[in-house]
């Protein structure tokens, strides 16, 4: 019995241990500076975060710093593009994000540059920042100084690049997304309300049925997009269409298909709009930047 237990335990341990050979998981984006090694003191982290936040307010582009112990078995480039794809630093469509990644035990670092900044932070420039500014300080053990100086240099370079002016954060994360999503969902909304409206009209009669369906539609839009004007417009449109349209009530069975993929597809793409502290704005990366070691 004991043997079996021991065997089970060993198996369990093996199963738990196995992921250690897998790729390093992308750390959660808890702030502009994510330090998994305890290299930076909390005051240094706070200072750097504040500088980067101020820079975003002033210029609009986002810079994040990540320090991990190792990226093995992946190369730092592979890990870094995964982080970039997960974090989505930088504004959507402008793609003006950059990530300074340090793999401390591997003695490697990389600056990953978003599409929109590749003109300013070119490969050669980032390589120089790494070789001439960061690496010498890292060599002498001054990690905080190296990271701060490197980040400052990156900001200076980005400052020279004409970028779209920063907008208030809440606006650019939610509002264009919302309109786009509404357009994406529009056909489904229309068909869905036609079916449901037809059903309701059969139950309640033409006027009340249309009104109820319109109310349901606007409630749904309000729930999905959290915008009163949009909800009102959707309700109005639904009411007018239903009141005028002559579509019959026959297709009760299709009600199910309406509730299937359509609504959820609308809401799933409008995910990252709620930003408590710091989140990527949806910038994309294509592997630009440079790596170095110290």
């Amino acid at each position, binding site marked *: 019995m004991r043997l079996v237990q021991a065997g089970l335990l060993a198996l369990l341990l093996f199963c738990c241990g196995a992921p250690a050979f897998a790729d390093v998981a992308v750390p959660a984006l808890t702030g502009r500076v994510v330090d998994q090694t305890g290299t930076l003191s909390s005051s240094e982290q706070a200072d750097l975060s504040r500088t980067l936040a101020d820079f975003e307010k002033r210029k609009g582009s986002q810079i994040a710093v990540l320090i991990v112990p190792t990226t093995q078995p992946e190369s730092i480039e592979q890990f870094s593009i995964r982080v970039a794809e997960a974090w989505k630093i930088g504004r959507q469509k402008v793609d003006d994000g950059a990530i300074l990644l340090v793999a401390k035990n591997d003695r490697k670092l990389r600056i990953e540059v978003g599409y929109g900044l590749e003109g300013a932070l*070119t490969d050669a420039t980032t390589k120089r920042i790494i070789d001439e500014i960061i690496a010498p300080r890292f060599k002498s053990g001054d990690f905080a100084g190296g990271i701060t100086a490197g980040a400052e240099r990156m900001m200076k370079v980005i400052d020279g690049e004409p970028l779209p002016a920063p907008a208030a954060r809440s606006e650019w994360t939610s509002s264009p997304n919302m309109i786009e999503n509404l357009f994406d969902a529009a056909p489904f909304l229309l068909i869905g309300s036609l079916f449901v409206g037809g059903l309701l009209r059969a139950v309640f009669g033409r006027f009340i049925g249309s009104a109820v369906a319109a109310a349901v539609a606007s409630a749904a839009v309000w729930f999905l997009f959290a915008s009163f004007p949009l909800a009102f417009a959707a309700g109005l449109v639904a009411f007018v269409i239903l009141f005028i349209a002559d579509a019959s009530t026959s297709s009760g069975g299709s009600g199910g298909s309406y509730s299937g993929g359509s609504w959820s597809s609308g809401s799933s793409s409008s995910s990252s709009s709620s930003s408590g502290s710091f989140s990527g704005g949806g910038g994309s990366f294509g592997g630009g930047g440079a790596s170095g070691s110290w």
Partner: protein
Amino acid sequence: MRKFLTVLAALATLGLSGCGYNAIQTNDEQVKSAWSEVVNQYQRRADLVPNLVNSVKGFAQQEKDVLLGVTNARAKVGSVQATPDVVNDPGALQKFQAAQGELSSALSRLLVVTENYPQLKSDALFKDLMSQLEGTENRITVARNRYIKSVQDYNVGVRTFPNNLTAMMFGYKEKANFSVANEGEISTAPKVDFNPTPAPAK
């Protein structure tokens, strides 16, 4: 009549998205844009080559064979047509890959040779070019990865039920992907080793 038309329009819309026609279109477009990005990045590398050759030439005139090899490979790359139709033609993709692979290995031979010229290696222009080349190689890797993934999405979409019926009806075939055999061919490091120090580029 109007009633009938409304229902028909609704059914057609639902039907098309239900049988995956829209999904196939989306994936198809994604493959195309991913492929464009691959070609774009390979082009970027090809554009770098003349500068690189020139800067090496200034310091290492005697490495004629290697320089010539790179120039020839570069010329060959330019002659292979990289039209969007390549994604539908495994043979063309293979040709494209072979040409690019040849340039890759010619370039890495060049980089091995440059190890012998410390003066060249400390030259600022050469350093910049090297970082650009490294960055471009990395971009190529990323672009290829994304292409592979988008083709995977597309192929899975085209082959699974019920989308495969739609694909058959509209004539959508599987797309060519970067194959493992060629992958190996491209990523093998050249066996030329002049120095105990490893080559700077992969």
